[in-house]
């Protein structure tokens, strides 16, 4: 086995989750993948990724383009994966935040995240639970 490119792209939690959910046939054919896929989904179901969809991600990235200060790819990815809701949570994601963003811009960014990415608490819908059950079988 040889590695051609160890890190060709970054994937968001949502992308991994939807790929794993779509590959049920493959999962059934490989026992270790069934376990790993079950555990990974179990971890991701508790994260904001479980409430996201393709439109949510596209919409978020589109809105980020209009944001006055550019953020790095890694920062945008972590905003999507973690969905920070307050100052303490967002300052660990954005490097040198106090130098780069003014207080008003920070407030705007928090609102942008809250508006475009659905929160985990909103409407406890059961579809994840049924998906997990099928992985288990």
């Amino acid at each position: 086995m040889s590695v051609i490119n160890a890190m060709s792209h970054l994937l968001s939690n949502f992308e991994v989750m939807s790929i794993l959910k779509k590959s049920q046939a493959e999962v059934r054919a490989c026992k270790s993948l069934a376990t790993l896929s079950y555990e990974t989904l179990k971890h991701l179901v508790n994260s904001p990724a479980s409430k996201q969809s393709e439109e949510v991600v596209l919409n978020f990235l589109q809105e980020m383009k209009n944001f006055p200060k550019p953020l790095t790819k890694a920062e945008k990815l972590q905003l999507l994966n973690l969905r920070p809701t307050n100052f303490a949570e967002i300052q660990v994601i954005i490097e040198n935040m106090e130098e780069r963003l003014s207080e008003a811009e920070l407030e705007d960014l928090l609102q942008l995240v809250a508006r475009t990415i659905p929160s985990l608490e909103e409407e406890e819908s059961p579809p994840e639970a049924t998906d997990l059950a099928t992985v288990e079988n």
Partner: protein
Amino acid sequence: MFVVSELSDVVRVEPDKLTGKSIYEALRQALNNKFVNKVLLNCGLFIKVLDFLPQSSKTDFHILPGDGAVHKKVYFRAIVFRPFINEVIEGRVRSMSPEGIKISLEFFDDIIVQGTRLPHPSHWDGAKGCWIWEYGADSGESHNLLLEVGDRVRFRVVDEKFTDCSPVGPTLDTNQQQNLPVSYMLEAAMNEPGLGAITWWSNT
């Protein structure tokens, strides 16, 4: 947290695996069986095959004398778990000891936070068996915040360590077998505002 890696490998597909499906379907299954849930050195934890790269169609199929299986060199992309340095991730406390805490992501358990990388000032409480952060100790008004097993925590990845665990040959000492090195270990930190138990920072 997850990345796409481009890899290549020679796969062996047994003849009975070829019935009723395309050769690439069989190759994909063989690759999954070989790599899923394994750590690739300096690459990360293999999750699953994503797709094949176009170069794969240029290599030949080989059948070796005395073996009915077909061998082919394939180029493919895979989903690999490999957080970048400085990435912030959420996980669950798996266990605690005076040295520090261990964090689990359900599918990956080898994440450690050393005691010195916990919020300052923290100390280990042997009686309760947990780490305690004395929040606001500098201002004189201190509150003890406990970290317990099962708590959801947020941490920053500060270092990654790959160890080559390939077999080195027979050893006479049988006890050594039980202490296999961890092939992929992440070192994490919680010593800045915003990191640590999620409940510490919510609703502020």
